[in-house]
């Protein structure tokens, strides 16, 4: 035994422990901040970080995660947090945390400093990210909200100046019709070329010449007839291929012409779109229960929906970033061999927080607490989805519950969230941002519930809003300014409860947004006799003007298409008749030859029978 060697080993071990104990906290804190900031694309800051090497106990006094879209705000922040990291998985480079005690959780808090973070060049992907599916839906819903915000019900004028309106509206149908005409022209020209510039007629003529060269009367025995039939067989095959070509071409020709005719049908849709656009510019509303419901409550309900959907989008983005890190493989110079997994004991994900006991306060002072379980980089390995269940209430018994599931276990990613916020006071608030309901409430309590489900790219959601025991403050608003307002006031004066529901889904195609409430019909009846008439009159004027401007072009395109199609059809029919006439000669010749062959064979058969009879058999 080398005594110096033993001392050396002991010294190295002690130095290692000592050094790691001294410098490890700062290094880990910096590393976590750096990596998390890269992942978040904005600063992630940890204050009061502690790390106990021997107990693998981690804690911090404050964690701030900057909102990358607004670097002066935090997406969320936490207060005192503590957890233990499991030892063995660390040796497999996996971070597994059993229980996290997280306090002081708060969403959307203000930052004292700018949380901008410059991502190191090597970490950037280089390619701009495409907006995700959820971002697209959020933007579509956002458009719907702004469209509703523009609707004006009580200030409709039927004496619109259509000339100045038209100056603001770009009639797109004119350009679209021009481009349709050009397309049709090219298509017709192509067919014209197909009919006139092909070798079919030439080929058929050659076949006919070959066939006519066969003189049936000169055929004296079946052998000659068979030889003639064989040479005819070759040209018959050519004729058949020409026939197939003609049939296929005819079918394509007819389908193509039918498609062209169908595209002419789009003209009316384009014109209608121009009319609708003009009506929008003139701020003419659709007077029906759906549009009234949307105008009254669409803004707030869809706004809430978008906020929650953005959180889900965030979860999906972070989720995909975490999952991505599992695929990174270390490069090993030597041949690495194959790992035999005798049990699934070490089949951990790279990152797994099993349980978070969370507590915090919302910006409306509700003390929130609950659990978030199984946040992991690979749910297939844990076999568990992320489940969250939070709830709490403030001193006035206003309560909030948020529960849901982020499940990537199946083939399709699935996110579900249910939020219920109830008991909040509506006193001195407006129930709708719409000009139709400009009155404050003197009393009332509200309940908002959101049920949001996203499966892959399919959204099915319901946002429900209920206002109870309400009373409108008509007195402060003064006397009604017009008939519409007066009608609305009398319609809703007896209402003490309003419920509105927004249904957002794309399960059967494009995004469908419907907003309804129990007061839509009251408004509809109030508006029917007054605004509806004015809207209809204004719409009629716009329709007449748009149609007047585009009808000549429509007629021009339709006439062009009709004439060209008739011309082409006639040419094609003639061409087909010519080819068929030539092919008919070939068929006739073939039939004659078959007949001659049979005659010759019969003659030989008869002669042979006569000879046999003569011999006396």
């Amino acid at each position, binding site marked *: *035994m*080398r005594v110096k*060697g*033993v001392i*050396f*080993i002991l010294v190295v071990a002690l130095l290692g422990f000592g050094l790691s104990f001294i410098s490890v906290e700062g290094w880990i804190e910096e590393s976590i901040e750096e990596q998390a900031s890269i992942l978040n694309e904005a600063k992630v800051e940890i204050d009061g970080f502690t790390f106990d090497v021997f107990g693998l106990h981690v804690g911090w006094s404050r964690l701030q995660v900057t909102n990358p879209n607004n670097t002066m705000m935090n997406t969320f922040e936490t207060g005192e947090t503590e957890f233990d990291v499991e030892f*063995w998985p660390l*040796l497999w480079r996996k971070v597994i945390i059993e229980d996290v005690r997280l306090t002081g959780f708060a969403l959307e808090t203000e930052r004292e400093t700018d949380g901008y973070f410059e991502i190191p060049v090597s970490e950037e992907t280089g390619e701009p990210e495409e907006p995700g599916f959820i971002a697209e839906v959020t933007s579509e819903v956002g458009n719907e909200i702004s469209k509703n915000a523009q609707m004006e019900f009580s200030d409709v004028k039927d004496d619109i100046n259509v000339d100045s309106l038209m100056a603001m509206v770009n009639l797109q149908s004119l350009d679209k019709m021009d481009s349709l005409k050009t397309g049709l022209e090219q298509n017709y020209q192509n067919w014209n070329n197909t009919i006139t510039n092909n070798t079919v007629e030439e080929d058929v003529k050659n076949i006919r010449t070959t066939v006519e060269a066969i003189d049936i009367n000169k055929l004296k025995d079946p052998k000659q007839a068979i030889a003639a039939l064989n040479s005819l067989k070759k040209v018959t095959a050519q004729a058949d291929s020409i026939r197939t070509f003609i049939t296929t071409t005819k079918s394509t020709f007819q389908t193509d012409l039918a498609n062209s005719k169908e595209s002419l049908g789009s003209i009316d849709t384009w014109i209608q779109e121009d009319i609708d656009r003009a009506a929008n510019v003139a701020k003419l509303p659709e007077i029906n229960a759906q549009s009234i419901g949307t105008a009254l409550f669409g803004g707030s309900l869809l706004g809430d929906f978008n906020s929650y959907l953005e959180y889900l989008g965030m979860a999906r983005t972070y989720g995909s970033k975490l999952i991505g890190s599992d695929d990174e493989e270390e490069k090993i110079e*030597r*041949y*690495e*061999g*194959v*790992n*035999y*997994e*005798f*049990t699934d*004991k*070490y089949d951990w994900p790279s990152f797994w927080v099993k349980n978070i006991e969370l507590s915090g306060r919302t910006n409306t002072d509700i003390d929130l607490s609950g659990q978030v379980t199984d946040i992991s980089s690979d749910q297939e390995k844990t076999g568990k989805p992320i489940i969250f269940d939070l709830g709490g209430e403030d001193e006035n018994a206003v309560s909030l519950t948020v529960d849901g599931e982020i499940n990537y276990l199946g083939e399709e990613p699935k996110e579900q969230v249910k939020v219920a916020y109830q008991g909040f006071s509506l006193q001195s608030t407006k129930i709708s941002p719409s000009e139709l309901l400009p009155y404050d409430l003197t009393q009332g309590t509200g309940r908002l519930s959101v049920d949001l489900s996203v499966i892959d790219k399919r959204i099915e959601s319901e946002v429900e809003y209920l206002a109870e025991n309400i009373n409108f403050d008509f007195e402060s608003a003064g006397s009604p300014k017009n008939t519409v307002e007066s009608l609305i006031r009398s319609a809703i004066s007896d209402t003490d409860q309003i419920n509105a529901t927004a249904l957002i889904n794309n399960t059967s195609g494009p995004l469908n947004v419907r907003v309804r409430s129990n007061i839509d019909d009251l408004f509809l009846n109030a508006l029917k006799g007054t605004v509806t008439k004015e809207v209809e009159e204004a719409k009629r004027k716009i329709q007449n003007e748009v149609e007047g401007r585009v009808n000549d072009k429509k007629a021009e395109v339709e006439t062009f298409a009709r004439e060209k199609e008739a011309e082409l059809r006639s040419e094609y029919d003639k061409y087909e008749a010519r080819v068929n006439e030539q092919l008919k000669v070939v068929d006739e010749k073939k039939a004659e030859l078959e007949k001659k062959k049979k005659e010759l064979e019969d003659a030989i058969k008869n002669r042979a029978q006569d000879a046999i009879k003569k011999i006396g058999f």
Partner: protein
Amino acid sequence: MLLIIKYIAKLLKALSSEASPSQIAGGVILGMIIGLTPIASFHNLIIVVLIIILKVNIGMAILGFFVFSGVAYLADPLFHSIGTSILENQGLQATFTSMYDSEWWAMTRFYNTVVIGSFISAVILSIPMFPVTIFGVNQYRDKVHAKVQKWKIVKALKGSKVYSIYQTVNRVRS
């Protein structure tokens, strides 16, 4: 450069008389095990500790490591197939499963075909390697050493300025 010359001189010195043949053989074998098996394996940490605390020749261990690392680079596919047959041996499945379930054993990565294949090969190879190396060292001392001293390259090395500096440093240190 000085380090390399120092290392070569130490090796030659050890071979000629300084170290016992068993110390040299021990060094070669331990170096061989590290060289043949993937370096970042837990068992290699233990072997490094053994090299430091046991009275084996460290220079020979380093030499063994370099020589057998090259061999391993080529022999890994062979180690993989040896490892595969060991890990797939039906009679050993229960043993491997219980070993795998123990974190300490799992740290050795003996569930990897190349790790276990190369380790078992190295251990088996060390059984004949030990007496063969002792025999080789004895043969070198009896028959080769004197001839090596007469080689021009050795003379040139001994006559070089670097070597004289090395000797001076050695004298001062001793």
